[in-house]
């Protein structure tokens, strides 16, 4: 049995759950449950990325994005527990979502047209990747240090509010 031929269907099925979780993020009244739904969106996104053939990226999304960033949101929202009622503007949301959908459809058609009429030549793309990981390794190191600095920045901002 060739499992690969069922991959689009498995991705589609996983995608349905992801769409349901995304709707839950925007519709659930309790922000804590919305945050938990966001973690499901991240996990299902990682599952689809894994099914597309990128297990490393999927593992990275799970550990860094869901494991750190989304968990940070869930903990922060749980500690804040805002009780105020939320004002919603359904018409504005529907209008923007429709415009967004039309924009994306137009972009997809444009990209398809570009692909049809523009045939790019062969590029040593794997060479670019290896150059980035060898020559620009210091830059990547600086990037990760900068990200660590954002943590300090976040703590500093939060403590400033506490001092006031």
């Amino acid at each position, binding site marked *: 049995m060739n499992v690969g031929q069922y*991959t*689009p269907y498995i*991705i*589609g099925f996983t*995608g349905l759950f*992801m*769409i349901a979780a*995304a*709707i839950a*993020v*925007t519709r659930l009244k309790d*922000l804590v449950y*919305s*945050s938990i739904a*966001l973690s499901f*969106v*991240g996990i299902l*996104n990682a599952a689809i*990325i894994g099914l*597309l*053939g*990128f297990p490393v*990226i999927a593992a*990275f*999304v799970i550990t*860094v*994005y869901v494991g*750190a*960033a989304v968990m*940070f*949101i869930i903990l*922060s929202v749980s500690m*804040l527990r*805002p009780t*105020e009622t*939320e*004002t*919603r*503007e359904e018409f*504005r949301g*529907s209008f*923007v*979502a429709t415009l*967004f*959908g039309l924009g*994306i459809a137009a972009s997809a058609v444009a990209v398809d047209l570009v692909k049809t009429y523009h045939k790019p030549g062969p590029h040593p*793309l794997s060479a*670019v*990747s290896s150059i980035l990981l060898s020559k620009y390794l210091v830059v990547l190191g600086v*990037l*990760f240090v900068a*990200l660590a600095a*954002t*943590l300090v920045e*976040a703590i500093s*901002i*939060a403590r*400033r*509010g*506490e001092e006031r």
Partner: protein
Amino acid sequence: MNVDLMTSETAYGIAFIVAAIGAYGIATSRNLIRTLLSIEVLFNGIFLAIVTYLSQIAVLDTLASVIIVSVVSGEVIVIVAVIVSFYRIAKTLDSSSMEEEGV
């Protein structure tokens, strides 16, 4: 790694629907945390589209994705800190109060 056309089209469809839901959430709610959560939904949709696109042209796929996820995770932490700080000062999460304050 190249994925076949049907798989990539399915992934693109899901990505764009999720991104549109995120855009809907951003425009609908005036609550800062809900807006942040909707931005993250939008990010998940766009990120899936980017990974699918990179899988077709095989340009720095893993490296670019790792950088994108790292930057977004850092950004989320800072935004949550700003929202917590704002909530402590204003005692509300409604973004209209920010407009009134001229923030």
